[in-house]
């Protein structure tokens, strides 16, 4: 297919998220967050622990309504969960009683896509993430990496324009993680979905992203939006290039400032 990815532009403007608590004070997770992600772009989001990165993803996914500000997908306000947005959580969240194939088929099943079409799609997706041989296994028979692959395949099941990844590889060992990131980029090379990926790793953020968005400590807002000066397709070796290391230094500087709570 030679479709130019025109869909999948995400814009957050002045987003506040306040969680109401019964006790004295509400928790403010996000305050005045702005973020623009172009169609087909990959943006890595990094920030101190508990800064509201996951909350931000949930706003985009339509799972949390912001207390203030606007979130839009291709100019249309995000008013709830949307099938054009695929979500990969930190944990695989597979249905333990279903096989891998049935888990990947789940979104299509809920969407009422008839079985023959569903099956063809599941087979294609399992092929893409390298799980064809595991189609008939249940999650407890899989390794952590395989489970997360299945979760990725499931997030792609409805051919979303936007893929949101919430620290999807944080539970995996470093080697698996690197391989995974390479595969993710290869997949992106074919699908050109917009990707917003939350991560804790600076090198991962740089390797994956066109830009790295650095959030402040809670209440989170954008403190730096750094363009990654690396070509695509990317290889792991590029992380050793001068451009990558200077970007890493910049990200680290902003992160340190954000963690210290001082915003310059």
């Amino acid at each position, binding site marked *: 297919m030679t479709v130019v990815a025109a869909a999948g532009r995400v814009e957050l403007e002045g987003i506040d998220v306040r969680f109401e608590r019964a006790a004295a004070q509400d928790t403010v997770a996000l305050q005045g967050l702005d973020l623009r992600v172009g169609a087909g772009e990959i943006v890595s989001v990094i920030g101190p622990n508990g800064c509201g990165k996951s909350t931000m993803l949930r706003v985009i996914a339509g*799972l949390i309504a912001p207390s203030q500000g606007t979130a839009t997908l291709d100019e249309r306000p995000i008013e709830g*969960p949307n*099938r054009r947005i695929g979500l990969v959580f930190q944990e695989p*969240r597979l*249905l*333990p*009683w279903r096989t891998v194939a049935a888990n990947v088929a789940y979104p299509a099943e*809920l*969407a009422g896509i008839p079985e023959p079409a569903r099956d063809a799609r599941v087979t294609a997706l399992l092929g893409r993430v390298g799980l064809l041989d595991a189609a008939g296994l249940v999650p*407890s028979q899989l390794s952590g990496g395989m489970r997360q692959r299945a979760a990725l395949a499931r997030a792609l099941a409805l051919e979303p324009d936007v893929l949101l990844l919430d620290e999807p590889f944080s539970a995996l060992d470093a080697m698996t993680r690197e391989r995974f990131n390479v595969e993710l980029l290869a997949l992106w090379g074919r699908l050109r979905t917009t990707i917003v990926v939350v991560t804790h790793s600076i090198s991962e953020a740089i390797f994956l992203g066109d830009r790295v968005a650095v959030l402040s400590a809670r209440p989170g807002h954008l403190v730096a939006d750094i363009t990654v000066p690396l070509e695509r397709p990317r290889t792991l070796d590029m992380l050793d290039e001068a451009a990558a290391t200077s970007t890493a230094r910049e990200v680290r500087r902003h992160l340190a400032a954000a963690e210290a709570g001082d915003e310059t």
Partner: protein
Amino acid sequence: MKRGAILAGLAALTVFVLIWKAVVIVSGFPPFILPPPEAVAGRLVQAWTTGTIEPHAAATLLEIGLGFLVGTLLALPVGYGLARSAIIARLVSPYIVAAQATPILALAPVLVLWFGPGLLGKVVICALIVFFPIAVSAMVGLRSVDAGLLELGRSLRATRRQVLLTLEIPAALPSIFGGLRIGITLAVVGAIVSEWAGAERGLGVLVNLARGSLFDTPLMFATLVTIAGIGIVLYLIVVLVERRLVGQR
């Protein structure tokens, strides 16, 4: 079923019979107090072939089956309501607990008085006794659904019905089957108790007949063996269905 489980069952039975026989020999109890196992086995075969037990067993089995079915069908939706709504839980729990706390033995005569000595009264008693464990296990099971899976369902725009069918029920099944296992054994208790409270037929009636007017202790034991057998077989059926539905996780 695995061969190991069958062998273990047979071993347990053999040990039980051997001890029984040993007690008979050592104690010297007369047969009308404790008949030897071979006498009971002989009476059991005879009672079945001559049709002494069969109509009673059929009556009891019908009571157990209907009572268990009705109790389950009532308990599952109530368990769902208890799990879903704190208000329902608060309003209904006192009645459920009170019904459970009142011994069925004491309640049975009242229920027979109201619903008559026929099948209806028996089914009511069986249903009542199986209701509690199944409702509670359904409630616990439905509440046990992983919050992460519910959020996944929400992100995929699952309808209320889809959440119930694809997330809540599958997640609750292991717990529900725990309740069904307890329920099916209690249904046997319920049936026998209900027959004691007034009935013309049933294994509970036969135990009384054998003890009283017939003065046939081996038949009494043969009836007990039959009741135990029914309980075990029904329990195993529930376990088999559970294996089929819950499977490997």
